[in-house]
């Protein structure tokens, strides 16, 4: 890929990662907190109890602050697609167009309309319509996430489409194959359910702080109870969807799975690391630790005897297992690239026969297209240590959350929360653990799939625009400054509202 400036690619990649990671600070809180507010609002509607009204208003206010600060931060990703990633944007345009258009319409009608009713509607619309507006905001937010995640899932598992060699664009041939691919379904369920954990941890964190300060005790205990039930259900669901996601990754992105588990050489009865670390810093594939026998085979293929390919099998090939080597795929990829060039020339010359034959060669080798851009077979290996550690810390935190929510639920039911200062202090800081887990999740998903923007078809290096590196560096630091200011503003405004407490809160955001 000498044609592409790697420094430019790395800066473009760093800028996108920065934007996505910052954007993902605001989004999961919106997704999770919206449902908790809707639950509280429903309790108020059902009981008419003013305590529920106070709770609904307080958490709605904090939801509103996060929503307001975070809204439109994702649009920056679209700016970057258009400028930095123009080749990629053009190639996937039709696939991203439909889900993002639906997302825009849904976001506009559901969120924009009902969020105003939710905040301005106290005493001005019927109680039922007001309560339903909270649910519409929650569902609208989550539906917005659905379409974005469908687009992301397609990059990891490009199905339901056909590449048009005349226009250089992927065209959708079956919307439902794109929208309902297992990758999309698992990605959506796993992503939103861990966002619910963030929402629950946020409520627990703030409420625990109130209890430690001996303020609003009844309010805080009730809030913790609701958040704990929600968080416990979400964290158990996350474990199942995470398992399903790993199963899907094993089928569609075996290199990512090998990186997640630091699996060098494939094996039957492959073990899963319960805990592991890099044994030799000079060798990125040499891990050791405590292993769970055959669990990787079970997780990846639902069969303890199943062979799980390692990095070496995917790079060098494994004839016995029917795995093509990277060099074979690179050769086929080069044939596909050359056939595309020949097809274009044949079309321009009006040579239909040659155009048809070159198109056939292109289509035959298209599944290896992206490999044709690599010079070295090792280029197809992602950053294994980063993927491994991110995956294992995320899983450990996921399991911790189940135990944490279960313990909190027990303590809430038995009314033992107030006396347990250490669990309250842990609860205050638990939101940070939630954010670490969710950001690590994205690192696993996105670093683990490197070097691809579209799995097997388009490497990151070929996706970028020819820009001056200075302009990408400048906007990188601009975004860094902008997002940091927004984050500081969010924390300051949230803290101010939290310190005011529930009773003193006004009715509107």
């Amino acid at each position, binding site marked *: *890929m*000498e*044609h*592409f400036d790697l420094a430019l690619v790395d800066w473009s990649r760093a800028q996108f990662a920065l934007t996505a990671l910052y954007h993902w600070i605001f989004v999961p809180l919106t997704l999770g907190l919206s449902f908790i507010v809707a639950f509280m609002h429903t309790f108020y509607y059902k009981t008419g109890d003013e305590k529920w009204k106070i709770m609904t208003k307080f958490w709605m206010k904090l939801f*509103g*602050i996060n929503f*307001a*600060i975070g*809204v*439109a931060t994702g*649009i*920056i990703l679209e*700016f*970057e697609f*258009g*400028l*930095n990633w*123009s*080749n990629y*944007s*053009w*190639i996937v345009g039709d696939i991203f167009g439909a889900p993002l258009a639906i997302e825009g319409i849904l976001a506009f009608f559901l969120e924009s309309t009902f969020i*105003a009713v939710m*905040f*301005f509607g106290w005493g*001005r*619309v019927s109680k039922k319509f007001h309560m339903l507006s909270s649910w519409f905001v929650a569902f609208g937010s989550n539906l917005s996430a659905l379409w974005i995640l469908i687009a992301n899932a397609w990059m990891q598992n490009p199905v339901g489409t056909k590449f048009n*060699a*005349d*226009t*250089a*664009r992927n065209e959708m041939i079956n919307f439902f194959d794109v929208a309902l691919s297992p990758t999309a379904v698992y990605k959506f369920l796993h992503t939103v359910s861990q966002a619910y954990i963030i929402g629950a941890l946020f409520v627990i964190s703030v409420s625990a702080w109130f209890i430690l300060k001996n303020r609003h005790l009844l309010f805080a205990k009730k809030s913790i109870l609701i958040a704990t039930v929600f968080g416990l259900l979400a964290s158990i669901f996350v474990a199942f969807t995470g398992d399903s996601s790993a199963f899907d990754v094993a089928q569609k992105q075996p290199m990512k799975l090998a990186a997640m588990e630091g699996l060098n050489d494939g094996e039957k009865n492959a073990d899963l690391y319960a805990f592991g670390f890099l044994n030799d810093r000079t060798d990125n594939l040499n891990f050791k630790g405590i292993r769970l026998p055959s669990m990787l085979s079970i997780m990846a293929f639902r069969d303890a005897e199943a062979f799980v390919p390692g990095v070496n099998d995917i790079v060098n090939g494994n004839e016995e297992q029917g795995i093509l080597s990277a060099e074979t795929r690179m050769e086929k990829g080069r044939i596909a*690239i*050359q056939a*595309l*060039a020949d097809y*274009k020339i044949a079309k321009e010359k009006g040579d239909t026969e040659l155009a048809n034959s070159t198109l056939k060669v292109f289509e035959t080798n298209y599944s290896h297209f992206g490999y*044709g*851009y690599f010079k070295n077979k090792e280029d197809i290996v992602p950053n294994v240590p980063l993927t491994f550690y991110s995956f294992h810390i995320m899983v450990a935190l996921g399991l911790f959350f189940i135990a944490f929510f279960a313990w909190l639920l027990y303590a809430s039911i038995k009314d033992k929360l107030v006396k347990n200062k250490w669990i309250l202090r842990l609860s205050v800081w638990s939101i940070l653990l939630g954010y670490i887990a969710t950001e690590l999740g994205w690192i696993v998903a996105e670093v683990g799939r490197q070097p691809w923007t579209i799995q097997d078809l388009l490497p990151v290096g*070929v996706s970028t*625009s020819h*820009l001056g590196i200075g*302009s990408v560096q*400048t*906007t990188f630091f*601009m975004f860094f400054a*902008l997002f940091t200011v*927004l984050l500081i*503003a969010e924390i300051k*405004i949230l803290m*101010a*509202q939290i310190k005011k407490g529930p009773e003193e809160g*006004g*009715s*509107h*955001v």
Partner: protein
Amino acid sequence: MVCRLYNINNTMNKIIDFYLSGFKNMSIHSRKLWLIILIKLFILFFILKIFFFPNFLNSKFDTDKEKGDYVIEQLTNN
């Protein structure tokens, strides 16, 4: 017909009034929040988008055919 138009107008007036009074009754904190939102949107759409993030292909080419040809050239000239 006149009655239906009157009803539509009445509903529109109610919606506008709903939003206007909602904004008017906001707390000072909420007003500050809206100020942050407006400043952010201004920075995003009127500074970043216009001066720093033009669409690369749109700024170089007029037609989809030109854009497609350029991308194919990018894909095949490696």
